[in-house]
């Protein structure tokens, strides 16, 4: 990529230290986090000691010689924002991937300060996805931040694209980090065939690009999101995939900077680094909002690893995908999934009994899990156990599976049908007023 050459730029040609990822040189008047071009490659100031400036070169330093040209740009990373961002895909530096048409618009610094908490509004708008595992049990709300926790072999990108297309967002901003080329094309095609390209903006780092470049991608995407949400009062949905690969890039950098790693060789600042991004999710008072749906891939379902663990402490819940072998479908696991903002909408924007139906069903599903354990340990099942198992299967098939696409009201009705089919009202243990009102014996 090329940067405009401006009058105040300073050029140096004497590097005295090179590591795999950094170069150091004598320079003056340089600002912290300033962007520079080292031998044509983008780099950023990460440390200044007296007159020694250390730069991180995003693409790595292979082949850079000590007499390479270093140009300081005098500014931190920026993005040009404007309406013609829509329908286009950009690289990690915010340059268009196809076509050379540059964006007309204001140049904004990425990674700028966040919203004053007292200027936020409490999220309260329900996002319907049609997927009951989400809408019924883990309802999403505009301004929320929530990741999918999934093993790499699960169809998280497909589910995410589905959620994005059904969510009625004004803009969908895709931040691809370490995306395979196939997945990049998948996103492009599915948005295209849904006729949604005019609502899409993409910032893409694929597996073919240097991993450290990924670190810029979410900042770019979120700056674009802020433009549409603040300037245009739009409902913006940001998709971050895959945040595990993003975090890996963070650890590469901190490692090269000789920082003391904390758990799982992640930098000690992982929590703050991730929170800085996720906290850009916001509901503005004027109607605009930024909702973040992310993907955090797990290894072997382990959520105690530093990446999902820190993520869980930051986001407002998580959606856990799991293959249910009993019904042969991928489901949204009701135990490990959670939407923390659901109580802002369920029973308020949806039918009054929604929270109670949700809890009752999950409790019965838990009973089924106990029965299953018994069965695995070789014990006889009670008649109640048998019923919970039948219920669990039907519940999984009709409500938890990710291929379900129905309205919330229908989800509730379906749940009552299943309750009545397998249990008595006492066993379900719902509030009497709702039993009186909604329970139908089949």
């Amino acid at each position, binding site marked *: 990529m090329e940067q405009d050459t401006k009058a105040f730029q300073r050029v140096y040609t004497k590097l005295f230290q090179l590591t795999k990822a950094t170069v150091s040189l004598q320079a003056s008047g340089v600002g912290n986090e300033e962007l520079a071009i080292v031998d044509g490659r983008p780099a950023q100031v990460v440390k200044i000691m*007296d007159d020694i400036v250390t730069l991180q070169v995003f693409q790595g330093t292979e082949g850079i010689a000590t007499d390479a040209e270093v140009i300081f740009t005098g500014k931190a990373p920026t993005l040009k924002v404007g309406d013609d961002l829509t329908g286009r895909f950009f690289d990690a530096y915010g340059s268009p991937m196809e076509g050379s048409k540059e964006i007309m618009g204001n140049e904004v610094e990425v990674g700028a300060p966040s*919203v004053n908490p*007292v200027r936020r509004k409490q999220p309260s708008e329900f996002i319907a996805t049609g997927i009951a595992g989400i809408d019924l049990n883990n309802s999403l709300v505009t301004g929320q931040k929530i990741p999918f926790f999934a093993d790499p072999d699960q169809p998280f990108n497909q589910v995410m694209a589905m959620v994005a297309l059904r969510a009625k967002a004004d803009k969908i901003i895709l931040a691809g980090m370490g995306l395979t080329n196939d997945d990049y094309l998948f996103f492009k095609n599915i948005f295209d065939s849904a006729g949604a390209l005019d609502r899409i903006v993409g910032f893409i780092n694929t597996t073919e690009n240097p991993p450290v470049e990924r670190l810029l991608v979410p900042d770019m995407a979120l700056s674009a999101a802020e433009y549409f949400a603040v300037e245009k009062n739009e409902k913006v949905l940001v998709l971050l995939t895959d945040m595990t690969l993003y975090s890996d890039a963070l650890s590469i950098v901190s490692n090269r900077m000789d920082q003391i790693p904390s758990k799982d060789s992640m930098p000690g600042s992982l929590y703050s680094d991730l929170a800085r991004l996720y906290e850009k999710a916001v509901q503005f008072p004027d109607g605009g909002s930024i909702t973040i749906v992310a993907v955090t891939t797990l290894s072997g379902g382990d959520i105690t690893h530093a990446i999902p*663990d820190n993520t869980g402490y930051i986001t407002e819940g998580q959606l856990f995908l799991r293959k249910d072998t009993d019904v042969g479908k991928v489901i949204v696991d009701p135990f490990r999934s959670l939407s923390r903002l659901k109580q802002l909408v369920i029973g308020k924007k949806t039918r009054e009994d929604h929270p109670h139906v949700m809890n009752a069903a999950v409790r019965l599903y838990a009973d089924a899990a106990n029965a299953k354990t018994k069965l695995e340990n070789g014990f006889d099942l009670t008649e109640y156990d048998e019923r919970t198992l039948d219920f669990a299967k039907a519940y999984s098939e009709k409500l938890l599976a990710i291929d379900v696409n129905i309205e919330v009201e229908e989800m509730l009705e379906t749940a009552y049908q299943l309750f009545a089919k397998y249990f008595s009202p006492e066993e379900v243990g719902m509030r009497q007023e709702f039993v009186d009102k909604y329970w139908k014996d089949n």
Partner: protein
Amino acid sequence: MKTTGKITGIIANLVIVETEGNVAQNEICYIKHGDELLMSEVIKIMGEKAYIQVFESTRGVKVGTEVEFTGHMLEVTLGPGILSKNFDGLQNDLNKMEGVFLKRGEYTYPLDVKKQYEFKPLAKKGDSVKAGDWLGEGTENWIPHKIMVPFKFNGNFKIKSIENKGKYKIEDTIAVLTDDDGKEHKVSMIQKWPVKVPIKAYKDKPRPFKIFETGIRVFDTLNPMAEGGTGFIPGPFGSGKTVLQHNISKNAEADLVVIAACGERANEVVEIFTEFPELDDPRSGRKLMERTTIIANTSNMPVAAREASVYTAMTIAEYYRAMGLRVLLLADSTSRWAQALREMSNRMEELPGQDGYPMDLPAIISNFYSRAGFVYLNNGETGSITFIGTVSPAGGNLKEPVTESTKKAARCFYALSQQRADSKRYPAIDSLDSYSKYLEYPEIIEYLNENLDSKWTENVHYAKDTLLRGKEVFEQINILGDDGVPIDYHIKHWKAELVDFVIAQQDAFDKTDASSSFDRQSYMLEKIVNTCKMDFEFDDFEEVGAYFKKMINQFKQMNFSEFDSDDFKKYEKAVEKTLKERRVEEGSEEDEDKAEEKSKEKKSAEPKEKDDKKESKSSESKDEDDKKESKTAKQKDKDSKSKKQKDKKSKDK
């Protein structure tokens, strides 16, 4: 003249300054970056070099930039107008900031300089006073606000003059004091205090001896908090720390509440901003927001200010305690504060302790917790800070430095269990793993028995024993199978479930169940304990679960109904009816086997007569264990069940 310096190095938010003149550890300084001033704190001094942590982003900062030192440590401004405010970690009033986005280098005055506050003298000319003594009183919202001799005043003073009752602005002089040397000092309604130094303007700090009512049963009934006590809530993400803290802040018996949102989600703070002005304080009938102050240093704000935020909150709490108020201080999450310390310590290349945390982490944490407490003020009045912090252990594993250090410092431990959260048993506190050291304090036991119910502590222990026994038999049931154990085991298990569902579990989002008064808790505890002491008769273990589920459901409906309302009584009647179905009255005839089972049940239960109380708990449960042994053995040869089980049993041998 103020000391100045020039920047010589920048690594993230650690900046190195070459100074000309004296600087002090923890002194505040400002980087003059263009027309922005970036607030920073000195954290290390090496010769001429001061290492400062910047409370803001250092983007664009250059070597050679001038730094100006202020001569004081990080201070808060104390005076009327703190209540209901939303501050950041450095006590900037967030509402006064302009624009939607935070701006670097924007600092706002925490109080309202123009507003007039009432002042009524409490002391008179000629009185001899010292730091913390009350000079006068005004009201802030509806809470009496004392104007005190500034905490920084050392020694004895005489009141030379004091203003009459009237309305004053916070900066107006309301009194003039003379010190021993005859020097005069003007006192206004405000004073400043460095946050890292405890305010010690009190006479005495006794052990906590009163119970602190929170309205939450897992606390009050099972592991009570003391007024002026300390507790912490560790738990994996999503297990319910924040919901629990918010619920406490809404319902607890405090005059005022200070909430430090330390490195957590902004939306959670917004929830407080949005809901508290609408919600009624259950005690005063006023709006909750009127008694609440929020220190919001959410996770997206600069890391260094996070550390400051908990100290800012503590200092504000201490200020109000010195007025004789009961203050509740909540911090969510203290782990984020510890992480901020870790980030800085790493940047300074200090020798790391466990998991990279600074070596002195345990000391820092205990120092902080020790600032809470119940105090007798110099004038004999009392005040308290009850402090509850949350801890977010990495990977949910409690064997990590922050949890372990906090465990040493706090007297109550409320363990959140992932398993309980997963099965939506909220609040997900494991009552057996948790403890309240206060339950062992004789002064607390006495207080409980005198003020609540003479049988209170006895009932509490009975309920906990029931939970424990239930846990033990449940393990047995899981090993031996449903029909591999006597029916009695199932009954024990379900009695524990009864305690769990009706006492331990509480719906934080149900308007009625969210908070339970002590009267109500005492009433329900008595009911549940009595039920647990009853004998029941079943032919077959499957009946046990179905029966208890029905009963639990009826009890839960009671929890969902207003105390003593018609609905409440209706469900209470329903419970009575259910109990009659299966309850075995004493003295009725039974066949041999059942009679034996019963007699055993009776041993551990029921003693209606007072003198039986003396029988000690431990001997009782030991007795119980012996019986269990013989019983299982008996059951084993009585009906050799399915083959699978036999295999299982032999495996266990």
